[in-house]
């Protein structure tokens, strides 16, 4: 839900509560006003009647007079207002009236005088006022809605322009972003903060990149030296069994370290999007190359490979495509058992590779994380699938794994 909708929703909710309250208040207020107006008219009439009685001793003609009845002297009642319904023949229905009863005296004879005033038009007036008010409020709401929308469009314009710029922002690009300025101070402030943040991120990114480059350079040379020296030690023929075992361990761990370094460098380079080329990659040909390179080891393991490969080209970096497919096929060979089988299927939608192999102990959802490996293959680094996952992330490929007892299937979908 966008901002204007959200605000409008809250406005509407607020108005939905306010509206009946306002109407009710209006209604009772107007009713009160009209009532007191009517009462004032009747009181005024009473004064006129009293005055006339005082002077002339007879009741004056009055439009409001309902009746006058002589009463006993002792039975003076307090004056009071009543609402009542009186049947009117001309309208053929009962009409609401306000009744005012008071006592006076005609020639020393106490009389009860009742005055009345019809409330009919007054009710209509209340309704009229009610409708008018509602109409005004409705206009107000509609007006507010449109004004709000226009203000939103105008005032938030720089915000949205900046937002779309930020969406396209890529930390690997060299040029920095210029944000649109705005007359609204909050937005200006936001721009400043974002610019500072972006500069910081860029700097961090550069540092990280440099760090990675340095690490890969600075670590590999010492590793090369260690390895050479260890080989010299092994060549020297002077070691006893114990020493030999230690030197061997050093040699193997050095190799592992070097491979981890290379693999992690590759991952971070993929993450940094340093592979930007979009080649038209012939998947069929790559798979053919990899298979022929591994043919002897496949024969050696006595694997039965069946393929159903259709010519397919995808758009991505050639090197990454090679790494991706090599890792998948290598996996299928490495984690296979003696005399097992590999099935490959390649078509426009996917590359699917199925192999026999031991039941993996790694949960499927953990499979694509770094340094996850099955216990049977201590020599693998557990980085191949993490690398594959990164490559798929860049190009929007999807990699899925499925196992059924001892049958493992990796599917690489070229379209999400």
């Amino acid at each position, binding site marked *: 839900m966008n901002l204007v909708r959200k605000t409008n929703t809250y406005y509407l909710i607020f108005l939905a509560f306010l509206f009946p309250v306002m109407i009710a208040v209006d209604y009772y207020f107007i009713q009160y006003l009209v009532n007191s107006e009517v009462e004032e008219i009747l009181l005024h009439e009473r004064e006129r009647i009293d005055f006339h009685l005082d002077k002339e001793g007879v009741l004056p003609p009055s439009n409001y007079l309902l009746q006058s009845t002589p009463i006993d002297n002792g039975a003076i009642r307090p004056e009071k207002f009543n609402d009542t319904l009186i049947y009117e023949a001309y309208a053929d229905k009962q009409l609401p009236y306000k009744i005012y009863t008071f006592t006076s005296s005609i020639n020393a004879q106490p009389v009860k005088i009742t005055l009345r005033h019809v409330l009919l038009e007054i009710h209509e007036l209340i309704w009229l006022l009610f409708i008018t008010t509602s109409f005004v409020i409705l206009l107000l709401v509609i007006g507010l809605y449109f004004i709000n929308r226009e203000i939103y469009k105008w005032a938030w314009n720089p915000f949205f322009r900046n937002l779309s710029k930020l969406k396209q922002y890529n930390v690997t690009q060299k040029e920095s972003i210029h944000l649109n300025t705005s007359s609204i101070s909050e937005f200006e402030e936001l721009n400043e903060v974002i610019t500072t943040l972006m500069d910081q991120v860029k700097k961090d990114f550069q540092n990280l990149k440099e760090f990675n*480059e340095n690490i890969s350079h600075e670590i590999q040379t010492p590793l090369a030296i260690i*390895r050479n020296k260890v080989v010299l030690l092994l060549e020297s023929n002077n070691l006893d069994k114990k020493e030999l075992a230690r030197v*061997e361990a050093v040699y193997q761990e050095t190799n592992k370290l070097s491979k981890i370094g*290379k693999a992690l*460098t590759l991952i971070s380079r993929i993450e940094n999007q340093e592979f930007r080329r979009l080649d038209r990659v012939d998947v069929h040909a790559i798979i053919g190359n990899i298979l022929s390179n591994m043919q002897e080891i496949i024969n050696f393991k006595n694997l039965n490979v069946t393929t159903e490969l259709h010519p397919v080209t995808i758009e991505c970096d050639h090197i990454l495509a090679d790494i991706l497919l090599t890792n998948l096929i290598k996996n299928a060979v490495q984690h296979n058992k003696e005399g097992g089988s590999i099935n490959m299927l390649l078509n426009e939608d996917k590359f699917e590779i199925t192999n026999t192999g031991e039941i993996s102990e790694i949960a499927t959802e953990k499979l694509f994380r770094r340094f996850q490996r099955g216990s049977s293959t201590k020599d*693998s680094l557990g980085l191949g699938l993490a690398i594959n996952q990164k490559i798929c992330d860049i190009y929007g490929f999807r990699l899925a794994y499925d196992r059924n007892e001892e049958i493992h299937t990796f599917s690489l979908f070229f379209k999400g």
Partner: protein
Amino acid sequence: MKILVIEDNAELLQDIKNFLEEEGNICEIAPDHKSAYDKIGYFPYDILVVDITLPDGNGLDIIREVKKENIDAGIIIISAKNSVDDKVHGLEIGADDYLIKPFYLAELNARIKALYRRKVYSGNKEIFFNEIKIKPDSHEVFVHDRLLNLTKKEFDIIHFFVVNRHRLLTKEAIAEHLWGDDIEMADSYKFIYTHLANLRRKIAELKGKDYIQSIYSVGYKFTDRE
């Protein structure tokens, strides 16, 4: 052959120099850009081994200079910059080969010899080791002048062995030589073992001696010395 190694790490430089000299080469060293220029200007070299990142400049500039001066030397780049751009770029401006650090000295040795053979003998040079003769160009191996029937990987193994005779070749170095960095896996060591057994058998069938020595559990040596 005469080799100049340009590399800024003194220790690695010394290792390479020792290794190449033990192979019977004349090996000179240059730890930086400037001394490399000086040496290239004065002496002819068959092979230049060039590191890309140097303290006072870029190894690629040296290659450009060599190509500009029309110096006839084979060039092998050694670099930790595991970047394909660098590799492509280096080969584009005239380098002959590219090795990524950390590399096995045996691998460097094999590459240098292969390059030298290509440059000087246009690849027609045969390699001899006692009764064994290798024709690298046609991928043929002869024992007592009789052709050995080898698979491609078996040829690669024996070729790598003969080029690095008398040296310890670890299983890792052999695996990397056979498959490159990407494909090497646990099975490859078993694979190597089996293929060495095949190789021994095939050579023995042609009355060749067994020169393959197992060195502990680390690797193998191809040698006629005790």
